[in-house]
């Protein structure tokens, strides 16, 4: 983890730890800091230590930083993440960069706050594997240094919930919103290329992105924090059947643990938000991902199946993937190749300046890959030459 810590030092200076991020609306920022966990240097230092500590996993091989790696844009840049004993999960790890500004956490939004989410992977059997919070707390309480730090940070004995709070406090320092695009919004007309500016125009108009990915100075993340079914996994799932199975499985073993296991470990994970709310309207829905720094956090979507931003554009351009619960706002966009390039150029302009070289590397790598293969591309659907249901209407 040392290489990560070294990288982190370059990115976040300890001195700035407790302040509102530069240029961010202080009133809005305060709304995101929980009342019982104001950011203090002690809490941040404790959280940092925990974030990189592999003792938080049952077999001592996995820490938060394993899947939310400082040198990999605070994620792991893998399709799905790998937990203890080499187990693979089913979901792509979101980045912890700017996670403090999200309104719900986890791709299915089952966590109401960052402090709550931060402690959940610790007890997930695939991720970090402790049977429950108490055993995790007992494990790290063996280190007297931790005991001292917890008392200094929270004025009470080490406990599981405070583990989450401390990590949350640390994550609140991981705010990276200084992209060239932000400077453009603040008035610097030359901050982004003409191509990217045109892409921004399309983003707001023809490409329809802005309605689910709004970006403005008060909400720079580019997510509406709502849950939509855009059909990413629909090509491989039968949602009706899955929903029936989910309810049957829960009827057989109605425990909280079972629900967690089902949500992460099985096909039922594909039901997304439905597993949380049981609302029919949420079948196959996942939270709109934030698009700040999107260039450096491939692969994309909840299951990591879209590898480049060009693949993402192809998916939307053809109107997602038809399924009975597809969000009605998803439709064929009729974007030309040039327009797709413009939107992608805009997306790459959303990366914080501190990651400029990684952004450049990703842009080149993704562009090379996209030049070779575009597996999700379907121009006939995109331009409505062929309609999704065409074969069904026998003319």
């Amino acid at each position, binding site marked *: 983890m040392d290489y990560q810590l070294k990288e982190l030092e370059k990115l976040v200076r300890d001195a700035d730890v407790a302040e509102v991020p530069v240029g961010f609306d202080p009133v809005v920022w305060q*709304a995101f800091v*929980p*009342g019982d966990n104001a950011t203090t240097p002690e809490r941040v230092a404790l959280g940092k230590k925990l974030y990189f500590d592999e003792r938080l996993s049952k077999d001592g091989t996995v820490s938060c930083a394993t899947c939310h790696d400082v040198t990999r844009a605070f994620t792991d840049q893998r399709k799905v993440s790998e937990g203890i004993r080499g187990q693979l999960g089913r979901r792509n790890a979101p980045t912890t960069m700017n996670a403090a500004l999200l309104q*719900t956490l986890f791709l299915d*939004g*089952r*966590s*109401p706050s960052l402090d709550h989410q931060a402690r959940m992977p610790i007890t997930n059997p695939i991720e970090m594997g402790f049977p429950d919070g108490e055993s995790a707390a007992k494990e790290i309480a063996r280190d007297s240094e931790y005991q001292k730090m917890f008392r200094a940070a929270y004025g009470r004995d080490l406990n599981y919930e405070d583990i989450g709070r401390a990590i949350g406090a640390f994550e609140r320092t991981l705010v990276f919103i200084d992209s060239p695009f932000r400077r453009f919004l603040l008035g610097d007309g030359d901050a982004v290329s003409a191509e990217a500016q045109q892409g921004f125009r399309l983003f707001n108009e023809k490409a*329809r992105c802005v*309605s689910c990915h709004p970006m403005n100075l008060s909400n720079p993340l580019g997510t509406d924090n709502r849950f939509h079914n855009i059909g990413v996994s629909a090509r491989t799932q039968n949602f*009706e059947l899955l*929903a*029936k199975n989910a*309810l049957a499985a829960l*009827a*057989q073993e*109605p*425990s*909280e643990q079972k*629900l967690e296991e089902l949500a992460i470990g099985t096909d039922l994970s594909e039901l997304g938000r439905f597993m*949380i*709310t*049981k*609302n*029919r*309207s949420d079948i196959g829905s996942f939270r709109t991902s934030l698009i700040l720094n999107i260039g450096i956090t491939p692969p994309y979507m909840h299951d990591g199946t879209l590898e480049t931003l060009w693949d993402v554009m192809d998916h939307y351009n053809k109107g997602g993937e038809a399924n*009975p*619960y597809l*969000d*009605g*706002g998803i*439709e064929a966009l009729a974007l030309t190749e040039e327009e797709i390039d413009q939107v992608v150029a805009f997306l790459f302009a959303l990366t914080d300046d501190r990651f400029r070289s990684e952004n450049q590397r990703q842009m080149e790598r993704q562009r090379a890959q996209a030049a070779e293969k575009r597996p999700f591309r379907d121009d006939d659907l995109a331009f*409505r030459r062929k*309609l*999704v*249901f065409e074969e*069904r*209407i*026998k003319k």
Partner: protein
Amino acid sequence: MRPKHKSVETRYMEERQEFFHSLKGLDRRSFMKVSAAAFGAAATRGLVPPTSFQPVRLSAGQGASAAEIHIAYISDSHLYEKDVNDRFVRSLLRAVDDVNQLDPQPDFVLYGGDLAQLGQSKELDLGAQILKELKAPVRMMVGEHDWYLDLGEKWKSLFGQPTYSWDHKGVHFVTLLSVVEKDFWTARGMSPMERMKTVAGLDNGVQSPFTVGAEQRRWLENDLARYSDDTPLVVFSHSPLYKLYKFWNFWTDDAEEVQAILRRFRNTVVIHGHTHQMLTNRIGNIHFHGMLATSWPWPYAPEGIPALTIQMSRPDPFNPQDGCGDGEVRVHSDGLVDKIYNFWNRNPVTVAREYTVSWGKESVPARPNRPSY
């Protein structure tokens, strides 16, 4: 700062804790009993289809009375030819998929009218072709958009007479052509397309108000003559059969006369289209329910909304299917119905039998958090 309102996630976590706490230690059989009981309790509260921790859909035998009839409906598709406009075709196909996936399948599917947008042959042919994909039998009803280009020629050749009745499991069903308009087009020298376009404009004041008309009222009286007052009666009509808002033809001009014919029956239910929104009304012993459209939602009229109606919250124009959908009608043995609005990208809403029976006091459906505008 403690938030004033609990977020969905917090409520979910608390609900879950409570739910699982109460289930700890139950064996499987007891669990099924508990969940069935919970389901039954929820059903009487009018919370039938999905709320948290309830089954996805009503399965046969749970909370159903013996003579229950299960109807699905699709309405107001307003099709253009697919080269002109693909959006309405997509929506109708989504509705057909929804109905085909019901398990068990309904007794029949009601098509609520306005299959075509401008009454064109190609539009009606396209609609007929799509509706052929429905597995359950289909009963068709005419809307004004289907009729006023050629005054019903194409419709009759495809679907037969617009007015008819039949009996099913002890309930008498009637389908009316309730969009009869007094001739406004001859005096103005309108072409058929001009006439159609006039009728197609909801707010076009040149057209006449909808009526059932004297001829059809006579037919209705004769048709009902042999049924006793106790017979459960369900009437399908495109216009509402009451007077809501004349400017948008949410109106049947001879509503009082029609209601007079229906008055003697112990329970009558009217299922109507045209309004593209959630609507509930009760006049005497006649219970009125509106159907959702697959094509687009109408806003609520500035006046005339019945007191029993719980309005749906304002649809989001970014999602052209918001506020649209299809639905189901469950007819109980006494002829009264649970009306299920199956919204797309929203939870279904049920207007249960008890709601109209109690004049809006019991089983009140959830109110929207936002104005319907």
